[in-house]
């Protein structure tokens, strides 16, 4: 299978602080990768570098076979824009547009950025909302929805651009445990459909049950990566064992 993401020697520092040191990993098409690790390990920064929200300081990144960051630096603006449209990001705190209805939150980018016909974009948005179990909320405003519903809208919004790889930045951290389940169910469904996903999460059970591969990060490096059964079962790393001890019980 083709690699949807190829990351080699990725580096990022904020001033003196090296947040990412030599990160290397690939993600195959249809693979679901969970990134776990303690706070401050660089997980979110990694995601932000892969989605161009932060500029990395070194290394190379290819997205969907298209080099994004090469040894010579970042590609031109136009190419970066094209790459970005192939990637979606679901934020921890949703970041829905509060002044737009749910439907318009989803149709705005397709109609404005991709110049999709309005009726077509709306039909697609309704389809996505149905999939998220939110067909009745098309005309509601984000402030009228629960956190879990808002997050599902934001997933629909990302999907409306038909991304080839979807990133999640702690998608359930702002939700109470009851609502967390809704989001995890949606992600499971996407995984079953073959969506390539990279999920930064604190939900260990979720990482274990849904991910094809788990990456454990700490201090800006990948300590270990492998199948969930490997990390959760018998990790080679004492640090990983220790981190997961509380969860494994």
């Amino acid at each position, binding site marked *: 299978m083709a690699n949807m993401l190829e990351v080699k020697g990725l580096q990022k520092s904020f001033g003196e602080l090296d947040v990412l040191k030599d990160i290397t990993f690939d993600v195959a098409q249809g693979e679901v990768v969970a990134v776990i690790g303690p706070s401050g390990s660089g997980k979110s920064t990694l995601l932000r570098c892969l989605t161009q*929200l932060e500029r990395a300081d070194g290394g190379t990144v290819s997205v969907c076979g298209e080099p994004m960051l090469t040894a010579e630096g970042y590609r031109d603006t136009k190419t970066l824009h094209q790459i970005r449209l192939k*990637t979606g990001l679901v934020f921890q705190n949703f970041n829905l547009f509060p002044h737009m209805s749910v439907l318009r939150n989803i149709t705005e980018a397709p109609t404005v950025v991709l110049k999709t016909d309005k009726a077509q974009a709306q039909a697609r948005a309704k389809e996505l909302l149905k999939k998220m179990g939110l067909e009745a909320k098309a005309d509601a405003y984000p402030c009228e929805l629960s956190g879990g519903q808002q997050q599902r809208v934001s997933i629909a919004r990302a999907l409306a651009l038909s991304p080839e790889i979807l990133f999640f930045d702690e998608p359930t951290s702002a939700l109470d445990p009851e609502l967390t389940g809704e989001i995890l169910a949606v992600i499971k469904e996407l995984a079953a459909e073959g969506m390539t996903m990279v999920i930064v999460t604190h939900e260990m059970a979720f990482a274990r049950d849904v991910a094809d591969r788990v990456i454990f990060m700490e201090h800006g490096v990948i300590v270990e990566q492998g199948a969930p059964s490997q990390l959760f079962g018998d990790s080679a790393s004492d640090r990983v064992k220790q981190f997961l001890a509380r969860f494994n019980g």
Partner: protein
Amino acid sequence: MTSEEILHLLGLMLQYLMPTLKLFGATLLYAIPLGMVVALMKMCRFKPLSWLTNLYILIMRGTPLLLQIIVVYYSVPTIRSSASCPAGLRTLLERVELKGDAGDVYMFRMILLAFVLNYAAYFAEIFRGGIESIPKGQYEAAAMLGFTRLQTFFRIILPQVVKRVIPASSNEVITLVKDTSLAYAMGYMEIMYIAKKQMTTFSSLTPLFLAGAFYFVMATVLTMLFGLAEKKLDYYK
């Protein structure tokens, strides 16, 4: 004053309402867009521009509007007639400074210029506060969806800024309607001008109270309009 005199006076003052509204409307028409530009200039990453803009705002907010009106009004004739004025500038100023029948046009333009420069500074600070209050996540979400910077500003940020700046802007606009009375100092014939004149004619305070009533009604109407606007934008938080 008899009630007939008061009625006559009211009719007279209504004729002078138009110049007041003209100055008010024209100031808003120019000061609001200019205020947005000034706000963006102040937030500009090119520091010298940001500092220069800040200096402009400091001066406009730190000195009286009346003084600014007088300075703007007299700057053209004073600079033009100064011995050290370069010929090119002099020609330009001579074209700006209209005389005779067009003197009123010159007066209105100069007063308007002072009002616009002053109010743009206040609006700029309100708009800047509004723009900076929009969470970073809105920009990031827009970027991830492929919106350009301009699309992000006009479709995502600005509509939210409008809602947030309405309460503060309503204060400015209501102050402006009363501030138009300062134009009286330059001889601009608006409500304050006729009220003062009639006060002398009738040796009565009534014209002043009537003028006050005009401003009061305008301010109240504006308050209600802004209340409606706030309500209309209340559909989201």
